[in-house]
């Protein structure tokens, strides 16, 4: 007998491995040719800790609506209650539940639970508080993301990589500010004016405010800050001369749910 069963299986296995893996392993391990650089744009805005201050004394319904609209327009955020074609219409309760939002408004009691006062100033009670992702220093969403699709940049921005998001929604459960929305359906039929320079999202990914990283990279301020016409300040919290620090020095500001320890970086002057 020339060959026993065990030996035969061993040889067959080895030759399969070499046959299947050898060529591709060679191709993968062979040195590549990509030899060019990716660089920062010279006009990019840089900071060590981006933060936002919202001066609620200057914010009313119109300002808030203008900011939200500017943001949603630039980033192709769909409006589920206004589809482009009648066949995509959703029942109002579904549209409200699944609405995607990067920047929206809340009443004081909802935006600042735990900070309620028994007798709150009428003016504050009625204010539409603009809320968005707080870009926490200690972001729970980043900690729970299993694919590192959401991560914290050196400049403090809690960034999302839609290419990696698997739609598990752990981050939505982790975020105490409900700043994240899930794409329950294809958003394209609900985007009236597409900004062709910015991608949309797909069904099955989570999205949120990114502090306009794409605008900072080309030297522009975030869209909401521009649209607010002076009601919002954006800048480097670690730079004592920045506008955010100046505003925070001169005014008393509060943050949403600071007691949770996430260290949110959006401040509200009330």
């Amino acid at each position: 007998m020339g060959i026993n069963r065990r030996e035969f299986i061993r040889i067959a296995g080895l030759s399969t491995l070499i046959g299947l893996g050898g060529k591709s392993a060679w191709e993968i391990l062979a040195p590549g040719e990509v030899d060019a650089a990716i660089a920062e744009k010279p006009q990019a805005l840089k900071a060590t800790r981006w933060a936002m201050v919202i001066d609620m004394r200057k914010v009313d319904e119109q300002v808030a609506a203008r900011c939200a609209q500017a943001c949603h327009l630039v980033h192709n955020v769909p409006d589920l209650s206004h589809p482009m074609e009648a066949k995509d219409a959703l029942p109002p309760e579904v549209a409200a539940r699944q609405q995607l939002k990067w920047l929206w408004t809340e009443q004081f009691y909802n935006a600042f639970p735990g900070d309620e006062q028994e007798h709150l100033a009428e003016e504050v009670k009625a204010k539409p508080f603009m809320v968005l992702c707080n870009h926490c220093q200690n972001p729970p969403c980043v900690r729970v993301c299993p694919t590192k699709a959401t991560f914290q940049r050196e400049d403090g921005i809690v960034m999302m990589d839609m290419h990696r998001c698997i739609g598990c929604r752990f981050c939505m459960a982790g975020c105490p500010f409900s700043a994240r929305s899930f794409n329950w359906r294809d958003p394209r039929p609900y985007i009236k004016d597409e900004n062709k320079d910015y991608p949309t999202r797909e069904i099955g990914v989570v999205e949120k405010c990114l502090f306009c990283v794409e605008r900072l990279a080309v030297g522009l301020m975030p869209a909401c800050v521009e649209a607010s016409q002076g009601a919002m300040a954006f800048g480097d919290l670690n730079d004592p001369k920045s506008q955010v620090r100046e505003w925070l020095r001169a005014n008393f500001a509060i943050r949403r749910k600071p007691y949770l320890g996430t260290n949110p970086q959006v401040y509200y002057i009330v």
Partner: protein
Amino acid sequence: MAEEYKNEFGVFGERPKVEKKLYDAKYVIPGLIIFLILVTLPLWPNLGKTVPVPQPSLATPAIEKMKDKKCVEALEFMRTNHMRLLIDWRDGVVRTDEKGATQGGREYVATDGKRYTASLSNTCLECHSNKTQFCDQCHNYVAVVPNCWGCHIIKEQQVAQGGAK
């Protein structure tokens, strides 16, 4: 003496006498033939046909206006490595390194020193504004379906015959 029947578990006395023939040949052989036909069925319609080699079109207004018709890198490099280049661009724009610093940036410095904005929709498709005539030609030919277009917007005057993914 009859041959001992032996395997790794022990000795089992006489080897059983089994007639060496194909049982149920009248079922087995037609069955095998039918199986072979079924397995090769997808090949029959294409027998003898040749699929034309894709001809990605460069006829877009932006490219025709260019004096020196050159992509961000050399043609041969782009042909084989455009997907790697795009992934590098993506990582440079979106991701950060372990420390959290942005990995690169939004500008691609080509090997000839020219600078380009690293963007699929805003740089590639600015010249190649004919996705169905350019990208899809080869992608369909080799049956790859890149999932770029679920999010990235196709800047293309919709060509009538479009429809490919």
